[in-house]
């Protein structure tokens, strides 16, 4: 657990004199990042996220207040030792250009005195673990793409298996597709490793996706709200947080609502290669096509099939929801389906049935009512 208690950071004025109040980057911050969880710091540029993060490993010294890790005041520890015990992923990776990927990853274990062989074996495991081809271990950073470098940065921070990780916009330098990949891999990794993570981003979507809890900071380094992502979306404390959390938050909040068990309609299907007559025999304008294992492939417009169903006639606009997914995915499947019937599959990707938007809405409303009746009770127990 990382604990901030009344932490303030005031930078000296540009003139260098420390009179006046200088510029306050972090203002009386009290915050707890629980063990084994991801705490995301999010906020507009210049709100003090990086400053907050770097005070934990003492790259920046707080003006006042204390920061403790598992009850030990960081100020009382040897600074090099403290840092070696904390995984640190900096923006743009910050890899060492003169070292191979492998040697970058072994940096901290080697500083800690782990022998070369052991360090390398473990580094190879990590390199694979973060989704890199082991053949890349011999490359130099200049020979990697931005996304690959960021993966190496994460592997390097993980190498000494530190219980605590500080990550400063680790996925910011890559395109949205790669970023989503990295985020998913990061979540998968974290579900295995259970590190205590302080994660900085300026992207609220990333914050909401990755955080077990999200701390929204406003300019001047004041903590505006600290809550679970769902709570943050459902109940921003003020206009600033509401504005920062952004549009579509009603819809986005559904990401955190598990899909309830709903009765799904059986959907008649055809296979690839089915004849036009087979398709028309189903009797609906849009017919679902499935693969050999029963996995949904796409919708076919009956009228558009000339001789038989081929991959080229498949409509691929519809998303597929999972039975164990969220209400948001379920609603999206229904909304994106050309037939209006949202495709639902099980965890193995096999078709289970379909559902219409009109059937998802009552589930959403039922959930809201349940949450509303629960909330006062929760508050009562909290007191």
């Amino acid at each position, binding site marked *: 657990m990382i604990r901030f208690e009344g932490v303030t950071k005031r930078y000296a004025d540009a003139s260098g004199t420390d009179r006046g109040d200088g510029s306050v980057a972090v203002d009386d911050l009290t915050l707890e990042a629980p063990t084994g969880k991801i705490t995301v710091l999010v906020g507009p540029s210049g709100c003090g996220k990086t400053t907050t993060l770097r005070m934990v490993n003492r790259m920046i010294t707080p003006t006042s207040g204390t920061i403790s890790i598992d009850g030990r005041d960081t100020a009382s520890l040897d600074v090099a030792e403290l*840092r070696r015990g904390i995984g*640190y992923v900096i923006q743009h*990776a910050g890899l*060492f250009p*003169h070292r191979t990927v492998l040697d970058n990853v072994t940096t*901290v274990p080697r*500083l800690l005195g782990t022998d070369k062989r052991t360090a390398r074996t473990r580094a190879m495991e990590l390199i694979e673990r973060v989704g890199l081809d082991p053949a890349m271990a011999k490359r130099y950073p*200049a020979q990697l793409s931005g996304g690959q470098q960021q993966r190496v940065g994460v592997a390097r921070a993980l190498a000494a298996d530190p219980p605590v990780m500080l990550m400063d916009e680790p996925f910011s330098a890559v395109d949205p597709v790669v970023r989503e990949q990295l985020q998913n891999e990061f979540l998968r990794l974290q579900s295995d490793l259970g590190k205590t993570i302080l994660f900085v981003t300026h992207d609220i979507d990333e914050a909401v996706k990755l955080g077990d809890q999200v701390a929204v900071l406003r300019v001047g380094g004041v903590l505006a709200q600290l809550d679970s992502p769902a709570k943050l979306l459902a109940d921003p404390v003020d206009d600033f947080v509401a504005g920062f959390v952004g549009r579509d938050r009603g819809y986005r909040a559904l990401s955190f609502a598990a899909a309830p068990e709903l009765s799904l309609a059986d959907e008649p299907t055809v296979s690839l290669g089915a004849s036009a007559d087979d398709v028309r025999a189903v009797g609906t304008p849009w017919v679902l096509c499935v693969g050999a294992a029963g996995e949904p492939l796409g919708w076919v417009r009956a009228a558009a099939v000339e001789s038989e169903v081929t991959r080229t006639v498949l409509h691929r606009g519809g998303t597929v929801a999972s039975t164990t997914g969220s209400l948001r995915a379920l609603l999206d499947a229904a909304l994106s389906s050309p037939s209006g019937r949202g495709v639902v599959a099980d965890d193995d990707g096999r078709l289970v049935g379909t559902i219409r938007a009109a059937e998802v809405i009552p589930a959403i409303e039922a959930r809201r009512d349940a949450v509303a009746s629960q909330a006062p009770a929760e508050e009562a127990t909290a007191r």
Partner: protein
Amino acid sequence: MSLATIWAWFTDPANWQGTDGVPNRVLEHLLYTGLTLLIALVVAVPLGAWVGHSGRLRWLVTGANAARAIPTLGLLFAVSMFVGPLIQSDLAFVIPSITVLVLLAIPPLLSGTYAGIDSVEPAARDAARGMGMTGWQVLTKVEAPIALPLFLSGLRSATLQVIATATIAASVSLGGLGRYLIDGLASRDYVQMVCGSILVAVLALVADGLLALLEKRAVSPGISGRATRVARSRARNSDPHSEPDPDGADRSDPDSRQAAVVGSGSTGPVEATAATGTPSERDRP
């Protein structure tokens, strides 16, 4: 004078023996060069590293580069006149010569070291500290290896200049290959002068080749490509005086390096001629 006479000079056993023989002169020359570089390194490397690391007193680097414009021989006589009366031994000549050569070697070493350390990306330095490296570890494990290629091109440039210019030591009655030039001039033995120049050029090329080899072996492949790019763009973006290292900028271009050798190699005798006050000799074939 023909190739044959030059050949004859080099194959004459008399020229390979004794104090005045090639081996001894080369050894003396290398001694001056080595001593000069050693002193210059001790001064320039910590200073350049500190300027690059802290970003303070950058004008030192620019200032040192501007000092390259001071005429070497004039400085040598000035220093000799100043030091000579104070010391009653051979050192009265050695100290001024080495001082002047050190002053010549410092600018390229200083700017090479500075540019090298300065080329370390802040993110890499930050990551190193953040991972728990001590200041010394950051310097030796991260900054130094990244700075190495630019430092080495500074060293190459300094070595070339010192080897070429160490000929001036002879003009204050010391040894080294400069003797062939000074003595040759005095006795109008032009063959000897040409052969001396050839020896200087060969020595410079060999030293440069060895350093190039060292560079190839010591510099991480991860940065050798990048470093060239950095040096190039720096050279392009700055005026010739603040340019960290002209040889570094064109390391891949052997012609320019060769030109530098021959160019500075020939300044020795020309300056010497001018300074010994026999300008008319120069125009004769």
